[in-house]
């Protein structure tokens, strides 16, 4: 069943087409990867899929709900969560607070209850704290809960963003290069984490240069080139697609995966 439907999407910057006539559909409960060389429009696409950019053409529907033109917080409310290629951690908070912020849409937020610190709010905060600690443990950051985010190493921050996005319990989770800048062991941990997320029913969209990771976890791949769709299919189909092999996989394999960090 289709979760995300994109129709004829188009976005340009100063006359340069970043995304052009792009249509595709992502099925629920699968791991989808978006690949392509640098500048293919992958991050632009994620920004279009979270409302950070407004497309000039086309429609995006999540679960049948048309979100085109809506502000980013409404895309989040509709069930889309994401991480960022260039970290967007809240550096003015602790790791735990970062993840607790992820529960914003789940926790109740009545102003009167906030101002008098009503018992209902205190209980909701305790729940949020417990869930956030559990999520930190799931991504292997249990020992970092009370650390200020600006004192944490890069690899930990990557996982912190994933935990924060998971806290919102999104239907669709977009991961923008989660393994970039990580060593092979850490990349394997991310691999396991993505598989666990998919196993729990979250639909995952992965943008990644690490082909080993992509081919290992994906059910379905979308290959972009100059903002257009070059190919689409299972890892086997993509691996044997002559155009893709010639133009992209070779290039991507030759590049160290850390380069884009």
């Amino acid at each position, binding site marked *: 069943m289709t979760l995300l439907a994109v129709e004829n999407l188009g976005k340009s910057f100063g006359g340069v087409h970043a995304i052009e006539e792009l249509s595709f559909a992502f099925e629920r409960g699968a791991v989808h990867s978006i690949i392509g060389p640098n500048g293919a429009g992958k991050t632009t696409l994620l920004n279009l899929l979270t409302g*950070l950019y407004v497309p000039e053409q086309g429609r995006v529907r999540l679960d049948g709900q048309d979100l085109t033109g809506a502000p980013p*917080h409404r895309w989040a409310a509709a069930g889309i969560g994401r991480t*960022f290629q260039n970290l967007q*951690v809240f550096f003015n908070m602790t790791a735990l607070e970062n993840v607790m912020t992820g529960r914003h*849409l789940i926790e109740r937020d009545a102003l009167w209850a*906030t101002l008098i610190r009503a018992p209902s709010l205190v209980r909701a905060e305790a729940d949020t704290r417990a869930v956030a600690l559990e999520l930190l443990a799931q991504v292997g950051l249990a020992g970092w809960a009370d650390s200020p985010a600006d*004192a944490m190493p890069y*690899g930990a921050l990557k996982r912190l963003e994933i935990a924060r996005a998971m806290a919102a319990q999104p239907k669709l989770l977009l991961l923008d290069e989660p393994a970039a800048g*990580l060593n092979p062991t*850490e990349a394997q941990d991310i691999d396991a984490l993505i598989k666990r997320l998919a196993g729990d029913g979250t639909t995952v969209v992965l943008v990644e240069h690490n082909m080993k990771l992509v081919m290992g976890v994906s059910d379905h791949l979308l290959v972009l080139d100059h903002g257009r769709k070059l190919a689409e299919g299972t890892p086997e189909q993509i691996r044997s697609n002559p155009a893709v092999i010639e133009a992209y996989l070779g290039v991507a394999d030759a590049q160290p995966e850390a380069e884009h960090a």
Partner: protein
Amino acid sequence: MGAGSNVSEPPVGFGEPARDAVPLAAVRTRWLRPRSGGLLALALAIAALPLLLANNYFYEIAILVALNAIVCVGLNLLIGYAGQISLGHAGFFALGGYGSAILSAQHGWPSALSLPASTLAVAVLAYVVGRSTLRLKGHYLAMATLGLGVIASIVLATEDKITGGPDGMAVPPLAVAGWALQGERTWYWVVGGVLLLAVWLALNLIESPAGRALRALHGSETAAQTLGIDAARHKLRVFVISAVFAAVAGALMAHYAGFITPAKASFMHSVELVIMVVFGGMASVFGAVVGALVLTTLPQLLTVLKDYEMMVFGAVLVATMVFFPQGIVPTLARALASRRGRGGAS
């Protein structure tokens, strides 16, 4: 640390992070956590202060400090947490005062009713101004409030049939259940209590999902939005709350002094309030109280420099920005925390 620019040592592995540094921010927040100390210390200070207040003049200053502190606690939420500046809070202060004054003096409303009614009206006004400007990025709110404050002070000075014009108007005393609040000592306890309430409400807001949302917007507006945080809505709520704090303080001031003049709405008064917040420490509730304390008493101590008061305020602002841009209270708190951290480690 810049995003990803500083690739420090990678973590050892899942589940066993290498920890050596004492997290300074954690120590600091624990030290300033509202329900452990800060509020109690403020309550004790308010309770003990009368021992030092020799006569009514000192009580008067203390009341003035508390009223300014109430405004600053609200304004600090806006500046320090919502990242917006209001250059018209004196306008809200004066409108709160005039509203309650006019309703009680000319329409015979009991002051226990005119004060909340006037506050509500200011809240609606702030909502209307904030709603149209906070959807825009940048400092449109500062512009809009600047204009609002100027308009308020002109209208209050020229509509002399209603407001008494530039000379101001007399205000009946505040009466609660037939008991009129009079005398410096009574008022001291009233405004002291309201200040405590204001600080408590502000701390509750900060230590809540809404407060976290505001800090998130400060940390990364992009990420905050993708977590479902509506930036405009959260900023608007804080703006309205800060206007309400100013209106309540203004109304209390009018009833306490028994008199109000348009000077209360002046642009310079708005600027003074902002300087108090910046000096005390943005994003620090107790900093706002300290800022109000220092910068309300300073002119009283330097009465010889009366003509140069604004210059002194300007110098304080410049010195703050140069020597402790975080404000006095956060700077001292950090120094204390790092000293403790070092002491504990060795």
